[in-house]
């Protein structure tokens, strides 16, 4: 078997104050695989993403992302080029004064030549359907448009691994449909955390269920999400298309 793109073994994370957010988390994700991460509010989905992206500290050897160990400072500095994360709230992610500058922020930080950055910005905005909005001020955009800008900002960095936290939030049905097409067309490893279980079904072949900081189920998305008992027990519902 080839080296997994994401490797997590017995990950534990506790916030200051002693609240344990993650306990004994372990899973592997193969290169190019799309995995859905579902669970009730406060289950630990965002904390897990922050650990995988190297934002929260993790013990040495517990996490490997695209062959990099986030616990190692030198390797952590290389993570942004390999791992892209789209946050739950787009306002946390978009801070530049124009859409173009915001999407260019990551590629410029990677030290790419300006011409290459311009090309990537154009491609990323095209991919999320925001071409023509380059000079718009982000805080004048709708929630859905901000979401796309946030996604474009990450896509422009061309990461090997994409972590999407509630990607369909604030999107209207058309935007959501386009997002699903976009996700399905991206040839990168993805973990998608969402309460939108239909989106998980449409985009992921595998699903992880997390509750109270522990992985409680891991298997084919259709099989896991169709398990009414499991869904009910962990504050979720079987998607309509599987009833």
């Amino acid at each position: 078997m080839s080296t997994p793109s994401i490797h997590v073994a017995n990950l534990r994370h506790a916030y200051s104050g002693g609240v344990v957010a993650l306990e004994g988390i372990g899973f592997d994700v193969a290169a190019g695989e799309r995995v859905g991460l579902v669970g009730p509010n406060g289950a630990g989905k965002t904390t897990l993403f922050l650990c995988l992206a190297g934002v929260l500290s993790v013990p040495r050897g517990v996490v490997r992302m695209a062959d990099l160990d986030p616990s190692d400072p030198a390797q952590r500095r290389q993570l942004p080029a390999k791992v892209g994360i789209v946050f739950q709230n787009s306002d946390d992610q978009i801070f530049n004064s124009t859409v173009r500058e915001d999407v260019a922020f990551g590629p410029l930080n990677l030290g790419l030549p300006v011409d290459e950055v311009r090309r990537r910005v154009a491609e990323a905005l095209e991919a999320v359907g925001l071409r023509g909005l380059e000079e718009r001020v982000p805080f004048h955009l709708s929630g859905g448009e901000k979401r796309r800008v946030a996604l474009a900002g990450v896509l422009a960095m061309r990461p090997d691994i994409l972590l999407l936290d509630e990607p369909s939030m604030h999107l209207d049905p058309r935007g959501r449909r386009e997002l699903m097409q976009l996700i399905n067309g991206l040839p990168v490893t993805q973990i998608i955390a969402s309460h939108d279980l239909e989106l998980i079904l449409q985009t992921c072949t595998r699903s992880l269920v997390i509750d109270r900081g522990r992985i409680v189920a891991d298997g084919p998305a259709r099989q896991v999400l169709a398990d009414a008992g499991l869904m009910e027990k962990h504050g979720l519902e079987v998607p309509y298309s599987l009833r």
Partner: protein
Amino acid sequence: MTSTLDVAAAPPSVLSRFDPRWKLAAFLFAAAATTLLQSPAPAASAFATALALATLARLPRRWCLTRLAFAALVAAPFVLLLPFTHVGEGPHWPLGPLTVSAQGLNAAGVVALKMLTLVLLMLVLLATGPMPDLFQAARRLHMPGPVVHVALLTHRYIFVLAGELTRIRLALRVRGYRNRMSLHCYRTAGHVAGTLLVRGYEQAERVGQAMRCRGFDGQFRTLSEFQTRTIDVLLFAASGVSAVLLVAWDFWQR
């Protein structure tokens, strides 16, 4: 959402065509000279020049007057008190239990003119070019990075917090809250301010995390490219010479 705090860019004008770096440098020169003025005539001249620049910049009149009025309101308590509190030589006139001094009136006039001049210059600077270019120009002029970053992030997130405040006010109104002079209202205002502070702090943490995830290493980089032309240098030279002449005139007037 368009906030009332937003900067309304003026229509294209002579001033909007200048290189932001030279324009910012000229502004800093003019602002420094204005703050040094102590005599009414030079202060009035500075204000007249700022007015001329505002006209040249084609600032929207209503937009400009609203901001000037707000600035005047903030400065009013200090300006109005000066004629009564400034003790010095020269004539004094009794006004009920108070005394108005000529020097105080003079000082109040100078302070008001300087304040209006500075605000007007700032509006000209803000409205004649995109904000990102201005921040980038500041970095190119070797202004301290943290100062520019804080200004940029403040400009961005003040709108988010203003939106948050609007939502909180709406939430209060739909639950029957009305502003009144009562202990309950003061306490509510305190809670709202506290909530905004906490949310602002939490958001700042999340923003920092998001920036690090996109490879931020403390250096702001941009796609903007600036080009110096002769006219930019002339603008800066004109601003510098005017500033020096104004300060010299003021010094001679004292």
